[in-house]
């Protein structure tokens, strides 16, 4: 198995501030790897080092078998980059944006035009080809940025929060497109705030917080390690229930108090709920659901991801 990307004790400092504090991970070729974490965790700082644009402060980074400090140009020739912010060329039309971007990769004008039309169809923007970029909606700009990242048939695609600001339909369209890329053998590295996105797409993921890795594994692995199979959400009229606290302690149930609800971790949600009822805990609302990565994150950091 070859490796698309590997980082060993990777660090990034801005002046005195260390944004990435020695992280190590590996992305096998053809796999989708995700970096999850709250604002300021260091996700984008990590991505920018991989794109070779931001110099590595210390540690080692190998991208597509090459060293970013000496082989930046050759690495970038095979990368597709979707930055966190859409930076499209406002002085050109939608189609010209793609054609010109191909030219930066040294692709001939004829091939660039064919590719642009193909990609506009791929992201469902063919009808806006001749429009200026400015009037496009946020989601359309995002899709154009994603199309732009694919002009060079990249081996590794980096997506920094690709679906932030997209409506559910556009998100699913994008997920579908990412599956297609994966089927073609493209390796993907994506950051996200959305747990369901990571669960849907990622083969493996790391959870980053404050510049360090707080957990690593496949989505199911992480849930199994840090959480129960199911989670029971309880709501009470007066927000909390004093009985619940003591009942939970007695019966060894793990709970987590959130501002608007309380979570109870249990492998069998129904059983836990009836046990609580027997002990005199009567919530006004209940919901039993499958545990998600969101719960993992909460369990690990005591904070919700979108705080």
């Amino acid at each position, binding site marked *: 198995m070859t490796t698309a990307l590997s980082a060993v004790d990777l660090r990034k400092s801005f002046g005195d501030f260390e944004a990435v504090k020695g992280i190590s991970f590996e992305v096998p070729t053809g796999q989708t790897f995700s970096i999850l974490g709250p604002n300021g965790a260091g996700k984008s700082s990590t991505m920018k080092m991989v794109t070779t644009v931001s110099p590595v402060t210390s540690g080692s980074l190998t991208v597509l078998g090459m060293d970013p400090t000496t082989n930046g140009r050759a690495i970038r020739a095979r990368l597709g980059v979707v930055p966190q912010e859409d930076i499209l060329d406002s002085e050109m039309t939608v189609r010209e944006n793609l054609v010109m971007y191909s030219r*930066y990769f*040294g692709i001939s004008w004829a091939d660039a035009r064919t590719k642009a039309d193909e990609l506009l169809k791929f992201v469902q923007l063919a009808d806006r080809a001749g429009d200026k970029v400015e009037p496009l909606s946020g989601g359309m700009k995002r899709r154009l940025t994603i199309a732009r990242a694919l002009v060079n048939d990249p081996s590794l695609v980096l997506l920094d929060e690709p679906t932030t600001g997209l409506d559910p339909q556009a998100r699913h369209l994008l997920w579908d497109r990412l599956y297609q890329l994966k089927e073609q053998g493209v390796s993907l590295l994506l950051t996200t705030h959305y747990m369901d996105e990571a669960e849907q797409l990622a083969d493996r993921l790391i959870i980053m917080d404050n510049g360090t890795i707080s957990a690593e594994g496949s989505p199911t692995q992480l849930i199994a390690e840090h959480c129960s199979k199911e989670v029971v959400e309880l709501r009470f009229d007066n927000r909390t229930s004093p009985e619940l606290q003591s009942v939970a302690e007695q019966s060894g149930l793990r709970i987590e108090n959130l501002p608007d609800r309380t979570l109870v971790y249990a492998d069998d949600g129904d059983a836990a709920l009836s046990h609580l009822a027997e002990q005199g805990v009567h919530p006004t609302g209940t919901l039993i659901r499958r545990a998600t990565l969101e719960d993992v994150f909460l369990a690990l950091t005591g904070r919700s991801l979108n705080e």
Partner: protein
Amino acid sequence: MTALSNDSSGRSSQSTAPFRMVERNALAWRHNWWVIASGAFEPLFYLLGLGFGMGALVGAIDVNGVEMPYKNFVAPGLMASAAMNGAVFDTTMNFWFKLKQERTFDAILNTPLTLTDIVVGELGWSVARGAIYALFFLIAMAALGLTTSWWVLLTLPAAILIAWMFGSLGIYFTTYMRTWTDFDFLPLILMPLFLASTTFFTLQTYPTWARPIVQATPLYQGAALLRNLSFGTPGWNDVGHVVYMVVLSALCTRAASKRLGPLLQS
């Protein structure tokens, strides 16, 4: 797929990479080509209005002991300012727009292009624009009977040097601009430079104490060189003008690239 087998067929060699910036600008300007075209006419209006119009009132003037019509004196200085204007447009406000406002360069740095490719390409584009303005002006000069010597052909490479000098000065200056409004100072620098560079008055017109200051300005250096070539009277001091401009251009190009690094690749 091995890790190192990149850049197969259809990929350009690295040496042509800066030319992509020229293509980018041509594509971006395609919708506003008339803005570029109109810039070429500005110095021509000065030539007709001041050189011919006011020149009729002034009559012949004395330039370094040689009598000549005022229009012949003004023309090469205006050619120098044509080269300057052409180079300055796309290295000041338009450059800042791509650097800070639209962050066009950030997107381009995710492609195989390097920062050096971008700087060289942007300078190349600006020098080309300055050179085209100068060439257009030179043709007008010839058509108006203001060229008297074959030496005038050398004004074209000299104009390219002038454009490089102002293009690199422009980029260097722009790396210090924080906001759009900082550019309000630009006319305050360019206008006096334009007026006080012996474009319209001979050096002898200035008080003795002011002459070294005028002579130190970059546009004076360019204008003086173009005048000597255009009159067919090149001399050793022209070597000095060329050296001045080459050194300043090289210094500014280097300094600008250095300052752009941290701005774009932190």
